[in-house]
């Protein structure tokens, strides 16, 4: 067992430099490891308790998630898949990753079912696969920028850790089939659909980290379910406790991502002090139409893009040029007005009200990372 773990760690070092190599190299290496594990440990043929229930839960969660995100595309918009949709190309794209997924899960199952009582073995095999996936995927990120590092840590590292914890738990409770089903639905769907919803990095990171945890909690609950309950009482408790919490969380996510009419933004300077201070969060009403731009008057706090950065300053003059609106602005705490004109196309919206102080951690983190 220790030898196998050592081989896997050495394999990860090999993987570090293989991002640009043909994925079949990694797939075949995993296939070899899977075959070795099969001959070393065998596959314990048994029908695990609640196998059908686990498979049902995995399918419902995964397909339900895909359905909800595709419907959310009607609001968030879609992006086109870069992959060819010809059948032969779909098979060619999927094949190495399918081999990798099956080999990894068979290896995981062979080891975990053999050493079920040794928790450290379960942790080691999970860690080894996490390390492989992180090293393999790290090449997709340009780590010279802080935002890419954060994206890598949340989507890749965070998502990989929670996914592999879930897969190890699925293998521990059932066998390799539920984890293969889960991974196939989540990891291979990008190769078979022509469009997918433009979730944005924030939502993608949240989903990557949280979704496996939710599914794991449901499966744990499956094994701890009491036979007799008083459903009415529990239903009310659930409604009172959980529904408001979920609604609040969804509301915060929606505000952050700017999906709806309003969005939030933390203020990073004192240019609008004392009306808006550094660390405050402003709630912005987003404007997109000509009618909305024309409703902007002097004295309103305008949120706009200039030279690639977002600025929140007060409108001092509204004029029109060639049928387009032009705004002049000034920070309340600045001695002089801004030296540039703002075209209506640069306008994001108008700040409607502020929430004091709650943006301070985000501002501090941004200043620490970006210097």
């Amino acid at each position, binding site marked *: 067992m220790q030898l196998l773990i050592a081989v896997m760690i050495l394999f990860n070092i090999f993987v570090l430099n293989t991002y*640009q190599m043909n994925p079949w190299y990694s797939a075949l290496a995993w296939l070899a490891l899977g075959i070795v594990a099969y001959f070393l440990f065998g596959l314990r043929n048994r029908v695990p308790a609640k196998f059908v229930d686990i498979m049902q839960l995995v399918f419902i969660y995964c397909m339900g998630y895909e359905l909800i995100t*595709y419907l959310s595309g009607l609001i968030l918009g879609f992006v086109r898949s870069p992959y060819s949709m010809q059948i032969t190309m779909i098979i060619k794209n999927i094949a190495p990753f399918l081999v990798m997924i099956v080999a990894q899960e068979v290896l995981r199952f062979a080891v975990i079912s053999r050493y079920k009582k040794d928790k450290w073995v379960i942790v080691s095999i999970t860690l080894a696969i996490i390390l492989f996936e992180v090293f393999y995927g790290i090449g*997709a990120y340009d780590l010279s920028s802080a935002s890419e590092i954060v994206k890598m840590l949340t989507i890749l590292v965070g998502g990989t850790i929670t996914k592999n914890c879930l897969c190890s738990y699925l293998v521990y409770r059932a066998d390799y089939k539920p984890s293969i089903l889960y991974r196939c639905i989540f990891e291979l769907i990008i190769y078979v659909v022509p469009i997918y919803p433009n979730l944005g990095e924030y939502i993608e990171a949240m989903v990557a980290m949280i979704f496996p945890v939710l599914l794991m909690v449901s499966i744990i609950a499956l094994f701890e379910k009491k036979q007799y309950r008083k459903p009415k009482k529990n239903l009310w408790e659930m409604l009172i406790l959980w529904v408001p919490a979920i609604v609040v969380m969804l509301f915060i996510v929606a505000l952050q991502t700017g999906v709806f009419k309003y969005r939030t933004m933390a203020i990073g300077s004192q240019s609008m002090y004392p009306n808006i201070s550094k660390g405050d969060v402003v709630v912005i009403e987003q404007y997109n139409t000509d009618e909305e731009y024309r409703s902007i008057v002097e004295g309103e706090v305008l949120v706009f893009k200039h030279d690639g950065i977002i600025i929140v300053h007060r409108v001092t003059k509204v004029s029109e040029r060639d049928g387009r609106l032009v705004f002049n602005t000034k920070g309340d705490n600045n001695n002089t007005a801004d030296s540039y004109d703002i075209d209506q196309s640069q306008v994001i919206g108008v700040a409607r009200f502020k929430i004091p102080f709650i943006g301070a951690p985000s501002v501090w983190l941004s200043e620490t990372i970006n210097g």
Partner: protein
Amino acid sequence: MEKDRKFRALAIAAICVAIVGVSVAYAALTASLTISGTATVSTADAWKIQWTAVGEPTKSAAVSFGDADAGKPKIGSGNQNITWTATFGAPKTNLTFTATFTNSGTIPAKLEPGTYVNATGDASSNFEYAVKIGADDIASKSGNILQPGKSVTVTVTVDFDKTGTLTDEQLEELNTKTATFTLNLPWTQATDTEVESGTKF
């Protein structure tokens, strides 16, 4: 437990019906769905087309990139586009720079047709753009294949009022001749047939 299983089985059936229905609806509605460009796939896979270098721009004396050249051409987030903001102080002025894109993944990519340069801001309608590979306009390279590991350098030129057709009055009304530009090349996976028979960059 049997009751729970039956409930879950019904839920699975309902989800499958919903997925089929949504797929049919999306296929029928594709023309009217908001599809904003090609995805930048950040998972551990083999697709990675990106801008890798931007050259120092040359420009007419009356062209400015703002304070401390903040608007100079630079590679955008995710290395998927190049953006720059410039102010053109007089007609018949221009700026030029080179940029390099690379297929850093393992999948051959095909250049799709499209509008490669977009501009926003005051005076954006008075600009002309040229994106060339050598002496050829990049639009003529649509359908060409970029193999893994290969790079191509383009030359981008932006002209303001190239032929000097704007009158003095019109120029005066354009108080600031500033625009923010974005250069974005749309790519999709090249099939094996296209790789075999297509023209390579």
